């Protein structure tokens, strides 16, 4: 028993965090929004690719790092913290390992960051980053297939988080290339997507809490820092509790997946419930404790809050995951298959 991130996994996450701290400030996050310059975002993504991020779950013989879900969680937490608007879960957790398994000639371009890929496990929901991606990994019936942009019909949509480049996608069922099929393979795709999203949410929550703590230490009202008032202190303490008890669940789910534990499905849903609820709670608390400036788009907080709301609903919202857990625990008969999309 050793409940702590392995040294090499922590080192990779720290390398990514250092690069992101230097290159990906709030202005870069804004440039992913409509009217910005997504090229700047993609340049940073290519530098992250230089550290091997998209290659994390790709086997070494295919040119990847050959790591597992245990390494995925600390890394994606850092990406979440940065707010960088890139398809990190879609590429690192879902797309790249599928391309590797299918021996796709497009894998190298995805691993180098030259080609933007996105993925979705929901047959009809809007697809994040679809409006920016050249490759789309999509769920079609009981299959996951790879499409090039020219093969699908896109209907761009506004998103609560403008940097998500959201679009509704119509893909021809017979087109594209088969990447995965059947319940077992689909479960792996689903599990990794859910896990990665939970890790992003954790990082977002930590970022918003840090911002808020910094703000309430500085901001003075009634002649004192607002962070010295008990009402403010206590709601921030509750926010920290929510995050600190979600984080171990995310790590545990990563370990459970990487070692093929029988309860990995349960642990993964737990991680998504706790991380989504914690990050949403922090977002709400952060806006409240910032006061009026938290209700603007001039200040950076909204960038992370909106990403939180988008991700809490993606890859199964907390209620859906609670239903899945209920089914696993024998508390309901319905639900499993339909909920896992």
């Amino acid at each position, binding site marked *: *028993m*050793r*409940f*702590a*991130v*392995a040294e090499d996994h922590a080192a990779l996450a720290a390398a990514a965090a250092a690069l992101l701290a230097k290159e990906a400030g709030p202005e870069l996050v804004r440039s992913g929004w409509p009217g910005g310059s997504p090229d700047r975002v993609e340049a940073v993504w290519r530098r992250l690719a230089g550290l091997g991020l998209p290659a994390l779950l790709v086997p070494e013989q295919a040119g990847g790092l050959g790591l597992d879900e*245990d390494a995925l969680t600390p890394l994606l937490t850092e990406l979440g913290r940065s707010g960088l608007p890139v398809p990190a879960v879609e590429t690192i957790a879902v797309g790249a390992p599928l391309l590797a398994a299918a021996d796709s000639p497009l894998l190298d371009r995805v691993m180098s960051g030259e080609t933007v890929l996105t993925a979705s496990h929901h047959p009809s929901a809007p697809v994040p980053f679809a409006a920016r991606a050249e490759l789309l990994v999509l769920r079609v019936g009981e299959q996951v297939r790879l499409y090039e942009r020219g093969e699908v019909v896109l209907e761009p949509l506004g998103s609560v988080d403008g940097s998500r480049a959201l679009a509704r996608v119509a893909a021809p069922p017979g087109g594209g290339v088969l990447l995965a099929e059947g319940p077992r393979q689909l479960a792996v795709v689903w599990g990794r997507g859910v896990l990665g999203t939970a890790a992003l949410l954790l990082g977002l929550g930590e970022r918003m*809490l840090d911002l808020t*703590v910094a703000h*309430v*230490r500085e901001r003075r009202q009634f002649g*004192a*820092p607002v*962070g*010295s*008032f*008990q009402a*403010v*202190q*206590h709601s*921030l*303490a*509750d926010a*920290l*509790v929510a995050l*600190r*008890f*979600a984080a*171990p*669940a995310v*790590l*545990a789910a*990563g*370990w*459970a997946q990487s*070692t093929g534990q029988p309860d990995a499905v349960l642990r993964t849903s*737990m991680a998504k*419930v*706790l991380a989504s609820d914690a990050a949403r709670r922090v977002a709400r608390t952060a806006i409240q404790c910032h006061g009026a400036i938290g209700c603007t788009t001039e200040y950076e907080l909204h960038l992370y809050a909106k990403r939180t709301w988008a991700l809490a609903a993606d890859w199964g919202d907390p*209620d859906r995951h*609670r239903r899945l*857990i*209920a089914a696993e*625990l*024998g*508390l*309901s008969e319905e639900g499993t298959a339909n909920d896992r999309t």
Partner: protein
Amino acid sequence: MDLSWSPEEQAFRREARAWLRANVPDPPLPSGDTRAGFAAHLEWERTLYRAGWAAVSWPREFGGRDATLWQWLLFEEEYYRAGAPQRISQNGIFLLAPALFRFGTPEQQRRLLPRMAAAQDLWAQGWSEPGAGSDLAAIRSRAVHDEASHGWRLTGQKTWTSRGAFCTHVFGLFRTDPEVERHRGLSYFLLPLDAPGVTVRGFPRLDGDEGFADIFLDDVFVPDRDVLGGVGQGWSVAMATTGSERGLTLRSPGRFLHAADRLLELARARPDGPGGHRDRVVQSWIEAQAYQLFTLGQVTGLVEGLAEGRQAGAESSLNKLYWSELDIRLHETALDLLGSEAEVEGPWSKGYQFALSGPVYAGTNEIQRTIVAERLLGLPRR
């Protein structure tokens, strides 16, 4: 990350499980917070001791089993899973003993720990006073040195003392220096409740059991050797071990994992299933798991020597906030599942009334939130 148990740990778990299965009283004992129930629990404590399970993580020389922290965690899990009796010795074994191990002289350790493990001495905690609850540093009970007799004369009142009417001893904080204020002039005393000048009056808790007591002290003599950690050091000794009370020592995850399992059983057994309460049942179960996972990280930190001192003390406030709120939610959900049966006296309704004291004892949750805000988040003090 490695969340697997070693073969030795698995063997330890099996051994504990087998022993508990063969020895846990069935039907369960009456409440240990009543006079009759306490006597039955005392028998159980001695049974535990004879088999070497009373204080598994202590060294053998003091009546323990030399178990690792991990094994202790496994024992706790098995203990609650087996539905074993509440530990009436807990305030000694889980609260006083950590202070004795850290601050006690070898003589104090040899004299007090084996008797504690064997349930010959049963310790109550004498911290709160009528005017000093959350504001513990407002303690007014005093101790005056008696040079001639090599000891102290204690006078004052302690209150809300758990099982004080049934215990044999009390550990408590007393003001030894009237000249200095607040947390500075306090000392930590150990004394028997049958000492001349001590009067104990039991009174009922919220759930009706006589679980509380007032302890009145009128010029009670305590020898010098029964000061723990040095004269004037009471606050440091008490604070250094509050982590035990707020954190995982007193409230290990096994307790809540078991409660969550009981809740699942209840939900499955209802004729219409969990019905509209399903999400709350699931959420409570999730949070019990989350508490366990959090503590695994904490124990890793302790084992690897990463968590020490003040930080670890403040971290235990996170535990306390989480388990106390979780305990209430578990019980509220169970009572709602029971519907019109909820009113009938039973383990959930009694448990609920006890759970409500969780956010109060060991420092109210308001105090804990302030500690988290100031020490973990670094927010400014008022």
